[in-house]
């Protein structure tokens, strides 16, 4: 898979896609949605769609695609190559969500949680296929959360499509298996060839699976913690594992929207209103107050 586009900038969201097979613009299609790399504390999360005409579903099954988790890396690579060969009826598209995008979304002033991010990405990919002229008739989606509400939302969003959201859909529907292979191949490749934004010396790339419970991953995180910056952007700062290492091993950082119960405001309001004006220090002119300016009294 050519991830060149991702390598030029891996700080945000990157969309990659195959050409649309012309038959998919003419015949009703079935489309599968799956994700890879949702759980790890390291690297991107990838959302993928894969689609083919309903009339060619048997041909896709004949490739013996299966849930990507049951396949070895080389089997996945081989199957993805086969799908590329069958580019006359199989199409795919995927979104690589960088760990930086995940961190900044989840840690935003207005929290954008991983579920919403996932749902919106899946929806965006289905819409992208439709915008490219794919005649989407059926959509199958794998989910980790409650399928009912997700299905309802998707069905509302795409009323003309028959939507099925199901746990373990990647094992049940070949088109979802195919999507899971696309996602996993992209995620593995992205992690393996990750271009660190930071200029780091002595970078150790032996980070294990990237899952928080992997001792190798944990060791890597501990080794690469930086007291001021925390971690490289390859790490999802919003993960509890990352946060707890930072709490112990990095400097505190105070943000205006995450103040930690200091009572300064309370102190000031009482002194301002209750003390007699005689004792109250004369406030500087509002010109200075509005600009955060005060007379310096010491160096």
């Amino acid at each position, binding site marked *: 898979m050519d991830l060149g586009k991702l390598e030029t900038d891996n700080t945000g969201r990157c969309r990659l896609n195959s050409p649309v097979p012309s038959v998919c613009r003419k015949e009703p299609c079935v489309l599968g949605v799956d994700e890879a790399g949702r759980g790890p504390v390291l690297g991107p999360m990838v959302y993928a769609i894969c689609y083919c005409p309903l009339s060619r579903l048997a041909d896709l099954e004949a490739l013996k695609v299966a849930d990507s988790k049951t396949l070895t890396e080389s089997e996945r690579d081989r199957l993805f190559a086969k799908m590329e060969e069958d580019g006359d009826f199989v199409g795919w598209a995927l979104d690589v969500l960088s760990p930086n995008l995940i961190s*900044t979304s*989840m840690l*935003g002033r207005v929290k954008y949680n991983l579920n919403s991010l996932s749902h919106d990405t899946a929806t965006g990919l289905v819409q992208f296929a439709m915008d490219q002229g794919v005649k989407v008739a059926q959509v199958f989606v794998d989910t980790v959360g409650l399928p009912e509400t997700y299905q309802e939302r998707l069905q509302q969003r795409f009323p003309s499509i028959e939507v099925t959201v199901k746990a373990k859909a990647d094992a049940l529907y070949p088109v979802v298996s195919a999507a899971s292979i696309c996602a996993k191949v992209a995620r593995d490749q992205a992690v393996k060839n990750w271009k660190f934004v930071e200029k780091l010396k002595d970078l150790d790339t032996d980070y294990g699976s990237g899952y928080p419970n992997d001792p190798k991953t944990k060791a890597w995180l501990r080794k690469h913690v930086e007291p*001021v*910056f925390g971690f490289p952007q390859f790490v999802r700062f919003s993960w509890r594992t990352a946060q707890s290492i930072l709490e112990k091993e990095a400097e505190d950082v105070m*943000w205006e929207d995450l103040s930690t119960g200091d009572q300064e405001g309370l102190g000031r309001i009482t002194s301002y209103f209750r003390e007699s004006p005689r004792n109250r220090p004369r406030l500087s002119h509002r010109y200075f107050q509005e600009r955060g300016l005060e007379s310096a009294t010491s160096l």
Partner: protein
Amino acid sequence: MESGDEEGVEKRRVHLRPDTLRSATPATLHLLPCDVPVNRPAPVGSFFTPAIRQGPEGLEVSFRGRSLRGEEVEVPPGLAGYVMVMEEKEEVLVRKQGFPQGSDNDEQQQELLEPPEAALERDFDRVIRASGSFSHFTVWGLETAPGPDAKVRAALTWPSLAAAIHAQVPGD
């Protein structure tokens, strides 16, 4: 500047070495929308600078997993930006001992009032020097650019108003 002596009288002077205003090397400054309550070395050039992107609405970067939007702010005309550091006592002593008893130094001493307590520099004084200079810096906002209403931008208008307030009034 702590109190000059045990009675709390504010005697102490902090001498700014004028020559350091010329020798200061250019410094890169970023004003962050969060407090890191510590003064320490930080690998800004490895972690922060390479991650800055020029986005459609200005500069973009992230810090500790939070998104920042930034913009360059120029130091107002007529002003120069300096980063200053206090010299340690030992450094001051070394400098003093190494001071050439040159003519221009003597001239200065004569310019001053003669009594020793009126000497410009005394043992209990401290020395500060400019280590860096700058003519612009980057102001960062949390998720949104600081924009024209940023307090720091408003503060930068102070020197021009101060000039008007403190200009000598014409005599009678």
